[in-house]
């Protein structure tokens, strides 16, 4: 079998040679790494990866192939959205042979179908260390033609991945407005499973005019939160109206910006399934899935707001909350997928707060 050479070139000039196993196209984007050891079908379909070329630090990938879709509410359980969002994939050792009772096709075939280039045979540890020491860089996968470097963060990535129209997932109460900045399927499932009715709306949707929601969930999503002016405006209005708000990942950053705090870009972000987040009130530590390149600057939190969770490794912010009012944000992913389910109770907590708020209103 003839192997097709492929390479990844970084903006610092370094270049790593390997072989193609996805679509034979060249692509440019932002290069990031993730340290998770399983969960590529879920991970690659996370809209937060929009515009990014992903390096996996775990070397053996493709082992269990790609499962068949399993849908509910038009949403897939095995994938976090309806398409592959990474722009390209860089790994050490692709497993041609896959083995799993749920597998329907190989990872390579799936990536080809989705027009995603992928390289195997790369010293991903060396590449990761470069990204760690120099910070996240632009890069390009070259298989066919050469490409210009391209910074996806210049685009409004949220706009690219957000739903184009409002969709309602009907269940019981409460009724939650889900601001889709690139939402993962399991956030939706997590709320429905707990009885909530959801209306999933575009990032810039006006949620106040036509309906009344019991609570607002701001989803995860790609890129720089400061690009989402419209969403920040919506959140500011919601804060004023004292509607309970829960922000996840990008949603946490947007909540902070709406509250008046600042966000900044991390040197190389947090992407993995082993990130320890400490609840500053209880001192309890939770292992979380994370996928973010930006963070809330705790020092800029205005009066009335406080840090809620903090990363045990680098002490960066992992969540904020209001001292008195039902507004909180979590920088990690309580819906996991892939990764540990330790913080899924936050959905319960959120819905409890929403229900209590409803009772209060009723009184």
């Amino acid at each position: 079998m003839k192997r097709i050479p492929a390479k990844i070139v970084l903006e610092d000039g370094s270049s790593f040679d390997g072989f193609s196993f996805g679509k034979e196209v060249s692509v440019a984007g932002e290069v990031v790494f993730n340290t998770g050891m399983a969960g590529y079908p879920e991970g690659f379909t996370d809209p937060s990866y929009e515009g990014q070329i992903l390096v996996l630090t775990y070397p053996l990938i493709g082992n269990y192939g790609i499962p068949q879709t399993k849908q509910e509410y038009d949403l897939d359980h095995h994938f976090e959205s309806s398409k592959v969002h990474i722009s390209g994939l860089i790994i050490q050792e692709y497993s041609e042979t896959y083995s799993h009772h749920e597998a329907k096709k190989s990872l390579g075939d799936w990536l080809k179908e989705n027009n995603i280039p992928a390289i195997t045979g790369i010293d991903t540890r060396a590449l990761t260390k470069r990204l760690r020491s120099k910070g996240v860089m632009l890069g390009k996968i070259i298989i066919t033609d050469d490409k210009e470097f391209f910074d996806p963060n210049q685009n409004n990535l949220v706009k690219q991945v957000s739903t184009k129209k409002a969709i309602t997932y009907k269940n019981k109460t409460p009724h939650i407005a889900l601001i889709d900045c690139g939402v993962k399927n399991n956030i939706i499932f997590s709320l429905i499973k707990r009885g909530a009715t959801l209306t999933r709306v575009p990032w810039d949707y006006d949620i106040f005019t036509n309906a009344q929601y019991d609570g607002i969930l701001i989803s995860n999503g790609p890129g720089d939160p400061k690009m989402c002016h419209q969403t920040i405006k919506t959140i500011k209005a919601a804060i004023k109206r004292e509607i309970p708000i829960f922000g996840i990942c990008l949603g946490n950053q947007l909540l902070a910006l709406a509250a008046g705090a600042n966000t900044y870009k991390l040197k190389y972000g947090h992407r993995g399934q082993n990130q320890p987040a400490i609840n500053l009130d209880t001192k309890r530590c939770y292992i979380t899935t994370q996928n973010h390149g930006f963070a809330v600057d705790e020092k800029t939190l205005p009066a009335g707001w406080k840090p809620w969770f903090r990363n045990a490794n680098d002490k960066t912010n992992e969540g904020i909350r209001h001292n008195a009012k039902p507004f909180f944000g979590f920088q990690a992913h309580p819906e996991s997928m892939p990764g540990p389910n330790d913080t899924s109770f936050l959905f319960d907590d959120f819905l409890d707060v929403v229900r209590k708020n409803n009772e209060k209103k009723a009184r």
Partner: protein
Amino acid sequence: MKKKPGKKKEKKDEAKKKMKILILGSGALKIGEAGEFDYSGSQCIKALKEEGITTILINPNIATIQTSEYLADKIYFLPIKPSYVEEVIKKEHPNGILLSFGGQTALNCGVELHDQGILDKYGVKVLGTQVQTIKDTEDRDLFVKKLAEIDIKVPKSKAVSTVEDAQKAARMIGYPIMMRVAYALGGRGSGIIQNESHLIAQAKKAFSFTNQILIEECLVGWKEIEYEVVRDKADNCITVCNMENVDPMGIHTGESIVVAPVQTLNNHEVQLLRDVSIKTIRHLGIVGECNIQFALSPDSDDYRVIEVNARLSRSSALASKATGYPLAFVAAKLSLGQLLPDIPNSITKVTAACFEPALDYIVVKMPRWDMKKFRRIDRVIGSEMKSVGEVMAIGRSFQEAIQKAVRMLDTGMDGITAKVDIEDVRKELKNPTDVRLFAIAEAIKQGISREEIAGITKIDNWFLAKLESIITIEKRLLEEKLTPELLMQAKKHGCSDKKIASLAQMQEDAVRVMRKKNNIVPFIKQIDTLAGEFPAKTNYLYLTYHGQEHDITFKEKKKIMVLGSGAYRIGSSVEFDWCAVNCVKTLRELGYFTILINYNPETVSTDYDETDKLYFDELSSETVRDIYELESPEGIIVSMGGQIPTNLISGIKDHVKILGTRPEHIDNAEDRNKFSKLLDALEIDQPEWKELTTTEDALEFAAAVDYPVLIRPSYVLSGAAMNVAFDEKALKEYLTLATEVSKEHPVVISKFILNAKEIEIDAVASKGEIICYAISEHIENAGVHSGDATMVLPAQKLYLETTRRIKAIARNIARALFITGPFNIQFLAKDNNIRVIECNLRASRSFPFVSKVYKLNFVEVATKAIMGRAVKRVDKAVFDLDYVGVKAPQFSFQRLKGVDPTASVEMASTGEVACIGDSLGDALLKSLEATGLMIPEKFILLSISGIQNRTKFLPEAKRLIDQGYILYATNNTYNFLRRYNVPSILVTKPTAPSVVRRAFSRLNAKPDVLSLIREKRCELVISIPDELDPNHHEDKYLIRRHAIDFSVSLITNIQVAILFVQSLQERKHLSIKAWDEYM
């Protein structure tokens, strides 16, 4: 104001200082409970010391690092038994006790201490996981109930206490069923049962050593997955590592090839089992570390929790080494009540311990078996553990790691396609033995499809595909011209230069030259617990061909490399780890930067804080040279890791600088021919010998010197293929065996001298002059391998003249070989004749024993000598002791079904213990007890073969009667005793027809010997074979085997039996003293 917090802290420190914690070790290394507990105990002590806590350790395993003077504050070399522990508690008044760092031995002892009310009586608090939780995990019935409370699925099962209930339960669940035994080490007595008669037999046996067994649904073929879980008292809970057994359910995890992390599970399965792990561990209330095992269906996400080990285990040692996460250290801190988020990650030094390691490599663990060492062994592997050690290989592809692992086993296999004799591959796949992996490779080679192999073995297709890719590459190496591209591919698939050379028909060195020319070299990567996410300060390293840059630099100065001991196997275990660790420690104290190579996950030497750089990789000449070339150290020390480093010398000596005794001198001692000539030149006696050229020559020689003769290959450790032939037929048979084992080195036969005493000297020399020495004697006469012998130090029964001559001989040899460093010489003494039988120019198995008895670290002295430091001759007063040390072998015959439990010239013990006493008897009794022997109160069975043996034992039989013992005896022994008026009760022969046995038994005239043992109506069996009679006696074998199978104490050596009886009168006044109290 400022002073306040300081004062508070002081107070806290003071409280800690007053805190005294007792730690129970695991005793001797045995199958199912090996070196991993030296690792966990040592890390535990380090963690407690860091808190300023006073530590007391009870462990009779003198060769461990944890029993070093610089670790625990007080060390007791005593049996891990409640009676001894109580005495220590009485003396030391500890506030707390730790039960989870000494394996099943410590756990069981702790439960007993608790149940007997001893802990309450003296106010000793169990730290970490509580006894009730231990019981909930150990008692299968409680366990099943406990898990049912939270809807966690366990195998359908029933705990039963009678054979009848077992039958009922099995019928309900349906055959085949799995039988498991509560409180069992590594699954002892467990197994798949196909039908009722099989069940009755197995259940009866199990009830001899347990009062509960479990009949459960058979999950053979399901994936076997393990998680290592850590929890603190505030309920923070994490899973540090998950592992997948390549060999699925049905093969004990200790017998399985295991990979970390899991390879064939998707996110849903990984998280499902993780969630179940955490839920279970929280519900059980474990504080510290534990291991949870799952069966996972290969066709759905159905799972069962198989078991929870509420303690550090073999798997946790593996997980610790695989991830770099110091599990035992953290577990110890949690036992003190500390919280996970407050403990720093001591590997990275920049992140927290409250996280789950991310790996960016794959780890493969392989078990090491020593089946050939045992007579009558059943080589089939299954739900009981038989392996004696393990290796761990790290790579960035499965192929790279597993091929390394195979070579690390050091069984002569050069990768997965090694030549082994397999008659019928399919049969081997179906009934796996220790060569299963090679059978799979052979099957692939023969063109048997992966689907078929997976169908028979239930091994996941993913693993088989990876193995197949190795065979594809090897085929290309055989058929194609070796291009740089192909060479690179072969290296990425883990092929050694030697393998590539043999396939491509080149010289090994030519492959190396080609590699270097084309820049095909391994890269050094770090194990950092978090896949490169943070710049960790780790020194934990491995080599890979899947890379393009090194993680580290090689700029350090004053570097010394030390080679470790590799996999534990019979004849080489924790004692060489002790040597390596102490060598490195001394080097560091001398200001050197130390580099250690070792790949055994059960060791302390592979702990992150023992060396400056640790290469967790192969001890092969290829890898040692690769590392040497990168590091350019000042030299290599090869004399501390046992036989593996010694065997490497010839392959590396032209390329590296070997420190200590010169390689050519080592060769002069290792090569039988050269060594013999040297002895002749020095006019030192040796048993007559000859190097084998032809069988005819051998027969002629044997006839000339007269049988018996000893056959041995040179360059081997622990007497592999060593045998004593009493006649021509046996000689021919053993010769074939010996040539098989050692193809590269000559086979030697020598005159075997009967009734000779064996004496050893362990010593250190500098430039040919002896600096310190220890002369110890064996209790057993020659004919028992030195590793299986009971050793006494200082020698108690040697003539001064003998001692003088031994010293003189050692001095002459040391000068002649210009020894610098450690060495050991073994002697035979008979009728005032002293003959040299062996000389090793390296640290020996007994170095830790002699060092600790003399309180003089021989390895430290040796290391200083090797480094050219001025070392003074040790003052003779050091060797004048008012106490005695006795080292006794630990056998694992209970694990090895059907094996004849006797010692011979080929070593069979898996470990050892040593106790110190005020007298020889004091030390001997404690040592024997520490190996599991129970001191009898009333009933002893004698079965002594050979008139000589009976005569020798006669006074002791009388002594037993005088002390009020009741003796049972087999026919000949009975008649002999009767002739000398020693009363005994005659028992029937085991091979007598059952009608006869039953009839006698009914009449109560002659007890049936087997039921006597089975029903434990005798407490000790003394069964002595006649060494002059090589014929196999089924009767005697059955008696010995029965004693083992039904946990009745057994002594099989005449000298040990005699000394044991002579010591019995001291049994009521054994000394309970800490090591430092012997002065």
